[in-house]
């Protein structure tokens, strides 16, 4: 099949956009989960991803947590336990740390803020974000780390060969993006199964729908909150692994949260499918926009395209693509 070069390039761009859209969706998913279950916009979601990535790398490389603090004690000088932990075990351990974090957040913050207005809870998550950021640095050090959990990286040979055979032009697609897509799909499928078919999933949906009614059927809100924050922590961990493997584990990782915002505006704050579709639209949209319009305006449209698109959406469909319709009741 012979297609014009322009079309082929656009297709390649769209494919790559699709795959990075999955990454956006992954982060947005964490927001949606917590927002649905507790009505809290969790500003700290991005930092949670950073924290999870830092912890994972730290555990994997046998770093001693709080080494800098410990080293303040005169005569003590520790940096590493001297062992490395296998990736899988490190991921499991990090998962446990995230669950522990959920427990602590519930006990120290949420429990005391029951029935407070959303803005107070939002402020609390901002505080949480700064605290976690500092905690991450203190625990594991502020230097840039590389994440290596054995995920394949670099150009996918298969796609290159296949597209070459089809179109006479090999697409460049990063293998990591493909892995991310598969992982995200599995994750979403698991979450859906969990929320539709398990006892806790049903309780979770109940709480998301009506707190008072949930209490009256014997659902403990605190348990559900710990559960939700644990899941959000786990999603953050997955996002942290993917983004960390892509661009290194450093402070800027927490800024991926900012990419998730337009995704949420597009997809709606309460819809899991919305987060996924929103992520994909933004991923593809910004690649194609850069490809066609970028050269005319001097490039770097990726920095702002998503926000402008979200803004347009805010004007015409404030509840997002899949969000519940907002009806003002008089």
């Amino acid at each position, binding site marked *: 099949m012979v297609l014009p070069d322009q079309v082929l390039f656009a297709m390649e761009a769209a494919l790559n956009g699709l795959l990075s859209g999955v990454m956006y969706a992954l982060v947005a998913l964490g927001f949606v989960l917590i927002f649905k279950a507790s009505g809290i916009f969790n500003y700290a979601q991005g930092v949670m991803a950073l924290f999870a990535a830092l912890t994972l790398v730290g555990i994997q490389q046998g770093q001693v947590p709080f080494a800098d603090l410990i080293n303040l004690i005169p005569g003590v000088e520790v940096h590493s336990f001297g062992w490395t932990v296998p990736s899988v075990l490190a991921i499991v351990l990090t998962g446990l740390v995230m669950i522990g974090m959920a427990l602590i957040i519930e006990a120290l913050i949420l429990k005391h803020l029951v029935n407070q207005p959303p803005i107070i809870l939002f402020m609390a998550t901002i505080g949480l974000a700064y605290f976690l950021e500092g905690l991450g640095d203190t625990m594991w050090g502020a230097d840039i780390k590389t994440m290596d959990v054995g995920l394949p990286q670099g150009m996918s040979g298969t796609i290159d060969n296949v597209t070459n055979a089809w179109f006479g032009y090999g697409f460049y697609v990063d293998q990591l993006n493909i892995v991310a897509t598969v992982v995200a799909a599995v994750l979403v499928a698991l979450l859906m199964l969990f929320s539709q078919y398990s006892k806790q999933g*049903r*309780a979770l949906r109940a709480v998301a729908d009506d707190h008072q009614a949930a*209490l009256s059927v014997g659902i*403990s809100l605190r348990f559900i909150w710990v559960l939700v924050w644990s899941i959000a922590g786990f999603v953050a961990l997955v996002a942290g692994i993917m983004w960390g493997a892509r661009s290194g584990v450093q402070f800027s990782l927490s800024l991926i949260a900012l990419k998730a915002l337009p995704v949420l505006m597009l997809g709606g704050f309460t819809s899991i499918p919305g987060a996924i579709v929103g992520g994909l639209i933004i991923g593809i949209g910004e690649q194609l926009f850069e490809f066609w319009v970028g050269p005319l305006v001097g490039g770097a449209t990726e920095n702002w395209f998503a926000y402008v698109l979200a803004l347009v959406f805010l004007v015409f469909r404030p509840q997002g693509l899949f969000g519940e319709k907002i009806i003002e009741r008089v």
Partner: protein
Amino acid sequence: MLDANPEGYTTADGRKIGGVLMEMRNITLRFGGVKAITDISFDIREGEIRAIIGPNGAGKSSMLNVISGFYVPQEGEVWFHGQRRAPMKPYEVARQGIARTFQNIALFDGMSVLDNIMTGRLTMMKTGLFSQALWWGRAQAEETEHREKVERIIDFLEIQSIRKTPVGRLPYGLKKRVELARALAAEPKLLLLDEPMAGMNVEEKEDMSRFILDVNDEFGTTIALIEHDMGVVMDLSDRVVVMDYGKKIGDGTPDEVRANQAVIDAYLGVAHD
């Protein structure tokens, strides 16, 4: 008086009423400086339909919320099954076998009728998070068993045709029925109904009365209900507590209560001095 029969009594239509299931002793509830309930004591016996009535603002809903754990009284004791109950969260109260409905209906609007009623059985599901993942088959068998119980309730309340309908789309009267179904799904020892007939037309009220009587008759469920419409309550209940301005002004069978001068005054609006 009735309290002289610790073993219970037999009603006019031949139902056996058992011993005391729940007892409120000298309950006082304050919001800030305002007393919502002042020193109220009464009991609820096993198998009985017990009503709490009173004009608007009498503190009936507060009393129901004390029983269901949504409010914790400053003074007084709550005894359940012969044991003093420590202050509890609402979900803990629910797990003790006390189910309730709400005056303003608290259902999960986004879920189907079936799913709503299934949530009523959450506390009875044993399989945990991990065993659910590991032993899918066993979890399914348990689900089937609960589903069967729920289907019996659906049949009982005649809501088969809306089984799969999202609750948000139902009219008011049916929502009330679904809420009752969800409470029943928990197989409660004590069922609390907060103004079950509020906002209903005559026909819906008759339906609801019939369901309440049938629930009591078929499942032997003890029922405590709040209502400000005196007419309905008098036909339904075995014994009635009357509240006014947070105080108990009467307690007894519907006939006794009807003859009580303080009750008559409260309902006719005689000035309090």
